[in-house]
């Protein structure tokens, strides 16, 4: 029986983390050397955790599926990282960042975790500056800030449009410093394929060397998963091609609770889909909404003429433009949270006012900002994003507005963790996007980088040490124990089974079919009928996979189709659980919008009396329905109100 206990420390909200740190158990330096930690994933959370563990003196093994830790998808985050420094003196504070994040998440996050996140946010900036991260600066030499959605203060630190890259490189460099010191052993092109439990505790992993195809056994005293989100269940998303949910799904299959799987974020500003060969969607940073204004034609005949190529956006007079975010949400305007902006764009396009050849796009226009600030100022702020847009679309955004449309971007749901970021499996921790903890039903912009680094630099080093303090007399395992042998055999059988199907369809063709079903029925707007259809459709896709996929080559050596197939098996099951969770949650909140539950103005309608809980799903094996356990959310420091950005 899985027990859901968040283990939130006693005391007032602002004192909880201080109290935890004061009470936690420590491990002395000579014992640290005897304790091994496996970290899976080298993004912000994984790299920063592994570097910190190494510095503390633990023995660390870190795994990445890429050729280098620096490739992790954290690198693609553009806009920035939030912190409550209040350098601009505009009224920010830890309390404000906390309440903005809880509100932005539509009151479905755990207060204590979010407060801690806000509390350590300032240390992250200091840490990164010390590492040599070249944040943007003012002429006076101090750090510059900008605004992001869901906030009325400027609290976002940035390094041009490449903040994720710079923060990841900082963490990567700290990691490589420990690799050089031999406190961390790095495994590249090596993928977790199973988690090994001994006496109910996580004691290691089975991995697959992606170059040789060999299956390897790795033991440790604790395992940290920092493997990112599962947005690629939709096939088309802003995630990297290799981003996958398999490590998190292995945890679920081993008994860990999986929380709020249906909470997926649709990002409003992505480059629209161009055709059937499209392989991924490109994000245009939310920071663009600081200076870009979003609009569609106010007259449907103008929208038609644009679709047919008879009019250009620059031909539409000012009075014939509908700046729909400014119209609907005058207080926040173009800087409403992502879920609100995405739904508003979809609403205009569904009503026939969309632009572009497909009608599934809206404009993001910099004309006014360029007139106000000059082209140079805009280029200094967004030059690399404008260049990226022009290379992809072949339009010059300095002269004609960008076209954008929402796309799947981030998954707030993930492996359930307690206050210590420990899953329901002892010794198995989960950090970054892979866990569910801090963003509720919607993540605010520039908060993913904050969370990844908070978890890795400032939370796990305390909580994992606290856990390991009980194991100073527990000897290392050799990897030859029966649990490892059995896990390895199961993995080998799983891969052989996939290879033996020898059907007629490529992995991608089945993945695209899954993605379409997800987008149509489990996407931006959901309803009970559609979700039931999705569950049926996904079951038939699962059958199709297991009877008709074709994997060329063998299990020896590099076999990219086999890698993809193994991940798709999990995406199909994740997609099914997303639909089941979305069907059960009879309310609209954040990124989860149920058409049956909306206000007369079309805003999301929460039902706090029934759904103010974290939905924790437990695998019951085989084809059995998963079990739902609830972690009731208590809000003591923020008042639950309908989010109002008007």
């Amino acid at each position, binding site marked *: 029986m899985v027990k859901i206990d968040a283990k939130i420390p006693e005391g007032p909200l602002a004192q909880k983390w201080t109290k935890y740190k004061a009470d936690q158990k420590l491990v002395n330096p000579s014992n640290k050397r005897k304790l091994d930690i496996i970290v899976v994933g080298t993004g912000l959370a994984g790299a920063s955790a592994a570097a910190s563990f190494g510095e503390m003196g633990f023995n660390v093994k870190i795994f990445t599926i890429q050729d280098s830790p*620096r490739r992790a998808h954290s690198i693609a985050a553009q806009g920035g990282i939030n912190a409550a420094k209040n350098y601009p003196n505009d009224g920010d504070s830890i309390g404000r960042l906390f309440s903005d994040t809880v509100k932005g998440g539509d009151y479905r996050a755990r207060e204590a975790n979010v407060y801690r996140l806000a509390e350590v946010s300032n240390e992250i900036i200091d*840490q990164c*500056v*010390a590492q*040599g991260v070249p944040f943007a600066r003012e002429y006076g030499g*101090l750090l510059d800030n900008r605004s992001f959605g869901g906030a009325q203060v400027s609290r976002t630190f940035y390094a041009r449009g490449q903040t994720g890259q710079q923060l990841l490189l900082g963490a990567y460099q700290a990691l490589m410093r420990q690799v050089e010191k031999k406190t961390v052993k790095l495994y590249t092109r090596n993928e977790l394929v199973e988690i090994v439990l001994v006496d109910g505790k996580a004691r290691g992993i089975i991995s697959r060397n992606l170059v040789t195809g060999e299956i390897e056994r790795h033991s440790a005293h604790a395992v940290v998963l920092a493997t990112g989100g599962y947005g690629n269940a939709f096939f088309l998303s802003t995630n*990297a091609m290799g981003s996958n949910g398999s490590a998190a799904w292995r945890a679920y299959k081993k008994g860990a609770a999986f929380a709020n799987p249906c909470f997926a974020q649709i990002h409003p500003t992505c480059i629209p889909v161009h055709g059937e060969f499209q*392989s991924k969607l490109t994000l245009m940073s939310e920071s663009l909404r600081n200076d870009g204004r979003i609009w569609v034609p106010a007259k449907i005949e103008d929208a038609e003429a644009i679709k047919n190529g008879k009019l250009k956006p620059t031909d539409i007079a000012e009075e014939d433009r509908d700046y729909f975010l400014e119209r609907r949400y005058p207080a926040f305007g173009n800087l409403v949270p992502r879920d609100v902006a995405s739904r508003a764009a979809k609403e205009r396009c569904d009503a026939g006012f969309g632009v572009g050849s497909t009608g599934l796009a809206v404009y993001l226009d910099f004309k006014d900002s360029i007139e106000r600030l000059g082209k140079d100022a805009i280029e200094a702020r967004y030059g690399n994003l404008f260049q990226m847009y022009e290379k*992809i679309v072949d339009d010059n955004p300095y002269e004609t507005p960008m076209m954008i449309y929402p796309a799947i971007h981030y998954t707030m749901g993930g492996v359930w963790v307690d206050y210590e970021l420990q899953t329901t499996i002892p010794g198995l921790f989960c950090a970054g996007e892979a866990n569910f903890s801090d963003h509720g039903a919607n993540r605010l912009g520039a908060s993913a980088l904050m969370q990844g680094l908070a978890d890795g630099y400032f939370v796990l080093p305390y909580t994992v040490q606290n856990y390991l303090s009980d194991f100073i007399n527990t000897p290392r395992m050799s990897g030859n124990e029966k649990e490892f042998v059995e896990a390895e055999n199961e993995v080998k059988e799983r891969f052989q089974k996939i290879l033996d199907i020898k059907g007629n369809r490529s992995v991608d063709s089945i993945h695209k079919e899954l993605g379409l079903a997800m987008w149509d029925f489990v996407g931006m707007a959901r309803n009970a009928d559609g979700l039931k259809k999705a569950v049926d459709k996904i079951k038939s896709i699962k059958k199709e996979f297991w009877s008709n996929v074709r994997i060329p080559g063998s299990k020896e050596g590099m076999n990219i189709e086999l890698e993809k197939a193994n991940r798709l098996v999990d995406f199909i099951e994740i997609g099914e659980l997303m639909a089941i969770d979305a069907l059960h949650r009879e309310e609209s909140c954040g990124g989860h919008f149920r058409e049956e539950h909306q206000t007369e103005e079309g805003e999301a309608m929460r039902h706090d009396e029934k759904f103010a809980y974290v939905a924790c799903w437990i695998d019951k094996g085989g084809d059995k329905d998963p079990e739902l356990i609830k972690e009731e959310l208590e809000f003591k420091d923020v008042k639950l109100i309908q989010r109002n950005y008007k």
Partner: protein
Amino acid sequence: MEKNINLTLKVWRQNSPKDKGGFETYQVKDISTGSSFLELLDVLNEQLINEGKEPVAFDHDCREGICGMCSLYINGHPHGPDSEITTCQLHMRKFNDGDTIWIEPWRSAGFPVIKDLIVDRDAFDKIIAAGGYVSVNTGGVPDGNAIPIPKDNADESMDAASCIGCGACVAACKNGSAMLFVSAKASQLALLPQGKVEAARRAKNMVARMDDLGFGNCTNTGACEVECPKGISIAHIARLNREYLSAKLQD
């Protein structure tokens, strides 16, 4: 406007590091000029799988020009014919109907081929491990605004820091030198007060590691700067050389 084109592809196939390898010829039809170059390879692979053949292995991930995973020598240029972009950002509108396109892996002693178009770039990680960082541990650091940094220095540091570690500079260099990569990191950190402290030691250690790993010497041909998808300037090489010389003089 977008249209569809037909192409002949000459693709390097090599089953393993020890395999000799060679070019294979493939025909692809109805490729939208709005597609990216990697989507062209996706189409080719779908075609090969449907024919019961093994798809072409190539490195790629973010497909938005930032992870540095994609590579490819296309018609003799790292990352293809367009300027200041990676292969994943190269679009088919740069090609004409009926074109023949040659696609090869990076060719360099420092980057051995693993399979087809995939090469091993571990050497770059090893160079960073030798000193490409500021030696600070987590925690115990001063406030982010404690040390003001002139905006020009911060901006130039950021220019250098935008290196994505793809290896195009090495692939473009007739000597197989990694100096642009090494100098970009050394320069980024040396330009900031927090990185200046150990600048000389860093320069010496990174250059020594680069030499150990079999990369060639820099003879200032400037090919790396031309082919760099992020437009990193060879001025950073000059800065690294200064740091390196002063470090050596102090020895």
